[in-house]
């Protein structure tokens, strides 16, 4: 589960609903398939930079939302997350994160099952049982300590496996990089995830706010990542497509889309591997 996935909160639920309505509108505009010249689908994880641009027909709007998100982050979310990290001891923060992870676990199990990974779904369900009971409502991750493996699984992956592979790029307000498919997945998740159904709805808005803060805090160590990028918007879009592509399908046995020197006609004499000054 990525940091972005953990950001559902009561406070932002209204916003999410709004995005959901918008999405239904957008969806009607994106039923067409985007294909390469050779007939293979674009957006299957092997996309080249040009193809990524083709999957971002709403770039001007996306860029505006990206800028809005950056400002919101700089003024509100980041300072709050930093204060949280400073004020709350590491162990307590770990416990809080564990509780949220545990609440999301049934959704992981459900999606693993829907993707046909029966064994992994069972292990995931077992994690939830162990951590909810012996782990005191998930505060302690006793399942990991007991070597019960943790997996990732979300509705976006499931939708992709069911056939919705290509999806246009969308930058969501507050949540950031996504796609039409992953946004729909997010709405579904917000309706069924115990973080919302059990946590935020029963325990009040503070629970949701805390969830948002821990999610942002988890991303703090990656801060330098996008700093001073030539084009931060393109960097985040690029990373989103690469990462999501490989979460959706196993790309551990293929070559990325390289332009190899010999294929570009660079003479072998110019490729000197042992030349380390």
């Amino acid at each position: 589960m990525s940091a972005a996935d953990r950001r559902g909160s009561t406070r932002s639920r209204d916003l999410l609903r709004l995005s959901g309505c918008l999405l239904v509108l957008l969806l009607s505009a994106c039923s067409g398939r985007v294909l390469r010249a050779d007939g293979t689908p674009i957006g299957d994880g092997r996309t080249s930079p040009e193809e990524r641009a083709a999957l971002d027909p709403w770039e001007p709007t996306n860029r505006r939302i990206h800028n809005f998100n950056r400002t919101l982050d700089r003024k509100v979310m980041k300072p709050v997350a930093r204060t949280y990290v400073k004020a709350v001891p590491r162990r307590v923060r770990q416990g809080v994160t564990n509780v949220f992870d545990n609440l999301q676990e049934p959704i992981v199990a459900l999606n693993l099952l829907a993707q046909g990974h029966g064994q992994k779904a069972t292990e995931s369900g077992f994690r939830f049982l162990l951590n909810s009971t012996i782990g005191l409502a998930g505060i302690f991750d006793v399942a990991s300590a007991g070597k019960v493996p943790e997996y990732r699984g979300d509705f976006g992956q499931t939708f992709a496996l069911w056939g919705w592979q290509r999806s246009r790029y969308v930058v969501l307000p507050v949540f950031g990089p996504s796609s039409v498919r992953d946004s729909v997945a997010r709405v579904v998740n917000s309706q069924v995830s115990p973080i919302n159904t059990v946590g935020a709805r029963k325990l009040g808005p503070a629970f949701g706010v805390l969830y948002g803060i821990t999610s942002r805090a988890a991303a703090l160590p990656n801060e330098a990542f996008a700093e001073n990028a030539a084009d931060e918007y393109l960097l985040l879009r690029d990373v989103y497509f690469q990462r999501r592509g490989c979460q959706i399908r196993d790309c551990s046995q293929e070559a990325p889309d390289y332009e190899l020197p010999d294929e570009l006609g660079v003479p072998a004499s110019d490729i000197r591997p042992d030349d380390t000054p």
Partner: protein
Amino acid sequence: MRLLTLGLIALLGLGNAQAASERPRDMVEQSAETVLTTLVKRRAEFRADAGKLEAFMLEQLETSFDHQYSARLVLGRHSRGVDAETIDSFAHALLSNLMRRYGKAMLDFDPNVDVKVLSETPLRDGKLMRVATELARADGAPVPVDYMVREVDGHWKIFDVLVEGVSYVQTYRNQFEEQLRNQTLDQVIAGLRSGTVNVGG
């Protein structure tokens, strides 16, 4: 997703690749473990002296990272007709820039990880090989870290690292593609050295 820290650690997991008879998977597994162990053992020393950390990192990289090849892939079509010396300058300017900016983050990394090699796949008519590994962590799902390697004069050399599917080469290629539209390669190299040009990733 601790992409950048993991990426750097993964990049560094490159030493000890000497014997050609060694399989790439053994080289990758062994060197990743060496780096992780060293980061734990010498943590206090590295914290006190950033220079020592940088020296260690460079030493690791020089052992079996294919700078030239990797830099050419990062430059993509812009590497056409560029001589080896310029490529070298570019490769080293980029690496130093990265280490200056991200080196410290590596020391905050939780060393309680376990490297497991999953598969080894020859690609592009056997010119390249992809070694897929998994970093198992004490907290959280395992992180996939894959290495792209090629054989050079009987040695396995790494030229790309993919953390959670995000390729170091691809990501930088797209970033520099943008910069090289408005600047010459020499300008980009000078910018990397002075720190006025930074690249995300």
